[in-house]
């Protein structure tokens, strides 16, 4: 179960050119942009439910899932989780190209919270499940992007947590990769796991989710059956501020820019 109550998030982002000690000494203080990324967001995901979060760029989706995962602290409100979380927010983050496939399985796995002993025991099986058994000792950087994504997803799903948080992580692979991911996620759903997805991909969300939540300008503007919510989402206008750094998860959510000093 995921219970989000009255969640708000305000980022204070200093102007990049002012972030040196020298300038701070000369000017005495930094100036900031205040970003209201989330405003009073509340929803509940029941145990065994798969819920998707849909919204245009800058709607606050990535900030929301990072707060639910415990990566960013909220400015106000609370998040209650009924169990451990497996965050799949950026597939392969922490991979090191110069290390072998096997080393990367161990490194990525422990970073995702999988016990090392379990990883050591299951590493050959994981590599085989990703279809990379011939490349166990190869340097990861010599594999294709698709192979790396396959490996990352296979490792990520070994995290035995009842709550999955997935942020656009499936958007990177080809069709075969996505089909495999969807099949695996359906298996997790049948098992009774809970999931919160963030995506722009309506087809994927419709295929996997029981309900969708639509966000706009940092607020929840609708929640309900996928077909209805996809209609609502398509009627939304693009966010007022375009993303400048979608990988960061901060800049993507720039909503309500205000200048301040401090």
């Amino acid at each position: 179960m995921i219970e989000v109550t009255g969640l708000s998030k305000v980022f204070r982002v200093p102007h990049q050119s002012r972030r040196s000690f020298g300038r701070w000494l000369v000017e005495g203080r930094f100036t900031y942009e205040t970003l209201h990324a989330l405003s009073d967001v509340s929803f509940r995901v029941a145990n065994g439910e798969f819920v998707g979060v849909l919204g245009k760029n800058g709607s606050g989706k990535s900030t929301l899932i990072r707060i639910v995962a415990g990566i960013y602290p909220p400015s106000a409100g609370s998040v209650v989780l009924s169990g451990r979380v497996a965050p799949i927010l950026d597939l392969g983050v922490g991979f090191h190209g110069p290390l072998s496939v096997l080393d990367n399985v161990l490194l990525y796995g422990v970073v995702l919270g999988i016990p090392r002993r379990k990883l050591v025991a299951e590493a050959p099986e994981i590599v085989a499940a990703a279809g990379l058994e011939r490349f166990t000792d190869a340097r990861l950087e010599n594999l294709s992007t698709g192979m790396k994504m396959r490996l990352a997803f296979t490792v990520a799903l070994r995290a035995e947590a009842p709550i999955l948080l997935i942020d656009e992580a499936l958007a990177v692979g080809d069709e075969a990769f996505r089909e495999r991911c969807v099949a695996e996620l359906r298996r997790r759903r049948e098992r009774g796991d809970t999931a919160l997805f963030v995506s722009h991909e309506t087809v994927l969300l419709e295929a996997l989710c029981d309900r969708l939540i639509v966000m706009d300008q940092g607020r929840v503007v609708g929640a309900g059956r996928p077909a209805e919510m996809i209609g609502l989402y398509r009627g939304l206008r693009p966010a007022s501020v375009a993303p400048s750094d979608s990988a960061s998860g901060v800049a993507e959510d720039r909503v309500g820019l205000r200048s301040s000093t401090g």
Partner: protein
Amino acid sequence: MHLWRDRVRLLDIVREVAVSDFRLKYNDSVLGYAWGLLSPLVMLGIYLGVFRKILGIGGRGFEIYVLVGVVFWTFFQDCTFSGLNALTRKLGILRAVPLPVVVVVTSGMLSTFITLAINSVLLVLVLAVKGVLSPLAPFAILPIVCLGLLAAGIGFLVALAYVDFRDTGLIWHTALQALFWLTPVVYPVQSEALAEVLYLNPIARCLYLIRWFLTASFFPATRFIVLTVVFCVGVFALGLYAFLRRQRMIPESL
């Protein structure tokens, strides 16, 4: 049970990240770890040449004095930078995985401790072969641990400063160059007056004690040891406390 499982998980992360950082550092070198030894050895040769041949400084045992200084100064320098480097290199992890930031920074520092451990063993072997290793050598662990705590405490503060000031790396690099010459790493302290001033510096105190325990045959003054331990533990506690207080805001502030 959850708490214990989480601690085991964090220890797994610290170990795996530290070991992989260490391996990555020497992964592409033909000589492997030996390449990491080459740099301090070259510096050792240069300092010995300059001080002994050109300036005429340094008597018997000066090679060992400089060798110990270079090995432990190199560790101090690397460790204080490693926290900052961990923040920049692991930014992707910090923004995608719910981890205490202190775990990532500590892992970065620990990879420099692995280098220190290997170099310390090699150093002891060199001293033993040269026949100058003191029976008190096991006590050198104390000042080595103190130096590690001091470096880690400063490393936390440097990493924290980087969150607000992006030129922290450049500033600390310059500060380290000044600190190097304010610390008797490669030159002997030959006057009482100079010693009074130089040994206010806790790095100098640690180096003094490490050299003493490795090569001398009787204990140094207890007061000197106690003050060194107190100062190093204090800096570590201050750095860790300051870092823990702000760590929740770091992923979104970077």
